[in-house]
């Protein structure tokens, strides 16, 4: 499917609103993980606004497609996407991590409409996603399950237990995106404990593997179309830029788990508003 220029423009506008939501949330929380949230915005935008069969008015509907944020610390991105989609008010993003809020530091499926699985402990989300995909097969349903993993997260052994299982059980209704922004808390992924080469690892485990630019909507659209006809689970290795959209956060490891303070918040919002105005004028 070739995306039209107006379609791409619409997705870009939504993504900028989602990026603003990430900054709004982490700024108000005075903590959180903006860097790895900003790197997955395009894939979330495409999934929730084009690909996935979900209904904000009926968040638990049985035949919906599922999404599991295996890298649960990117919760600000998921919350901002769900709010933009209409699962709950955008204003609520300001309550992120507050002691009376539904928006926990990591997603809780019982609190937040639209969250399909509680995650946060790395390596566990992909197993739950595989369980959901198996559930679809066992009940003869056609829904699909999407999950996003961090490139640091795949250092967890459980990811590979799940990868082996998904291929062995032929879960071709499962798509795992790896957010390859090349940074984890302690440094670059190579410095810490290199997971490279990532595509070869998933291929060796029996997956359909595709590498894309994780910020390119046409590539995201194509890879998802490809996954629909695969007889294997699909791993999408996305090259991404951590912190994308906020100049001083881009490719900076220190923005993995730090929130913008007042002056930084204002710079970030000004940059995103400017990008929004430019995109709308296109």
């Amino acid at each position, binding site marked *: 499917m070739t995306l039209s220029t107006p379609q791409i423009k619409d997705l870009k506008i939504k993504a900028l609103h989602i990026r603003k939501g990430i900054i709004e949330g982490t700024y108000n929380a005075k903590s959180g993980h903006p860097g790895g949230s900003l790197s997955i915005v395009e894939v979330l935008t495409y999934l929730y606004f084009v690909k996935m069969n979900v209904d904000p008015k009926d968040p638990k509907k049985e035949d919906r497609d599922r999404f599991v944020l295996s890298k649960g610390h990117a919760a600000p991105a998921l919350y901002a996407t769900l709010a933009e989609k209409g699962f709950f008010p955008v204003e609520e993003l300001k309550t992120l991590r507050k002691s009376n809020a539904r928006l926990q530091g990591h997603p809780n499926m019982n609190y937040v409409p639209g969250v*399909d699985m509680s995650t946060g402990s790395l390596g566990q989300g992909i197993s739950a996603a595989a369980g959901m995909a198996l*559930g679809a097969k066992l009940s003869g349903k056609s829904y699909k399950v999407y999950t996003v993993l961090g490139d640091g997260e795949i250092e967890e052994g459980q990811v590979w237990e799940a990868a082996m299982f998904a291929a062995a059980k032929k879960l071709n209704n499962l798509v795992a995106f790896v957010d390859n922004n090349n940074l984890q808390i302690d440094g670059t992924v190579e410095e810490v404990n290199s997971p490279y080469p990532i595509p070869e690892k998933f291929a060796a485990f029996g997956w359909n593997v595709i590498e894309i630019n994780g910020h390119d909507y046409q590539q995201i659209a194509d890879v998802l179309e490809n996954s629909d006809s695969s007889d294997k689970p699909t791993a999408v290795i996305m090259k991404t830029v951590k912190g994308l959209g906020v100049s001083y956060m881009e490719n900076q490891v220190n923005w993995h788990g730090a929130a913008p303070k007042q002056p930084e918040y204002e710079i970030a919002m000004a940059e995103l508003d400017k990008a929004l105005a430019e995109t709308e004028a296109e």
Partner: protein
Amino acid sequence: MADTVRIATRDAYGKALVELGEKNEKLIVLDADLAAATKTGAFKKAFPDRFIDVGIAEGNMMGIAAGLATAGFTVFASSFAMFAAGRAFEQVRNSIGYPHLNVKIGATHAGISVGEDGASHQCCEDIALMRSIPGMTIINPADAEEAKQAVFAAAEKDGPVYMRFGRLAVPVLFDANYKFEIGKGVYLREGADVTIIATGLLVGPALDAAEALSAEGIGAAVINMATIKPVDREIIVDAAKKTGCIVTAEEHNIIGGLGSAVAEVVCETVPVPVVRCGVEDVFGKSGPALELLDIYGLNAAGVAAKAKCALAMKG
């Protein structure tokens, strides 16, 4: 007694799963390459399409179980207690316990009665681990009948349940008239001097101990505490008031198991002496199961000796 019928609770578990599978089409059973030992193999044979072997990957198994539960299935996930509660603890805590998903963990080969395999496989820590997870129900049945009823009750209950089964064939204590209820302890014997609160494999020896104490003129009540969480506070308070001292008996570390659960209730309500009979904070070892139970004092004599300690403390 030579004519005592002995059945391992794991066998009752496997049979109960088959019965449940006939009634409940949404029942799925997972195992981690131990179906022959955990007895989920019976379910595999009866319902091959609803049995999933995840291979030797217990952490992943708990995540798969969680995902299936979110899709509306009732999931039983099985392995040995060591791996179900031990290795996969954090997956049980975060992927099942925290979202309170409808997953039943059927943990077999609990305790030192695993026997010859030795300490690496003799899990005496599982109750302690599972007790610390909010919202987790823990059931440790005493015999085959109770195990069967516990499996049915667990399937009916929404939310996570940890069930503890043994490898060793143990005497059948109850018939179909026995009624197991989650959260309820049951008096099996009355007695005025001391109460023995036992769970699982130690319920039989507790009854034998009470009989032996009776011959010495000591009246020992016996409570079967199959549900360790939520523990039956009412019956513990009743026992503390009636007999003024309590002995707990379990095939588990004396730290964190039934003994701890009972002591917590007693010291907050009716403070009386509580003496714990169990594995005394040591690892097990290889050997025939019955010999090991004797070595670690997990028999009638061991329970009776602890009962006398409790009586002495009562003064």
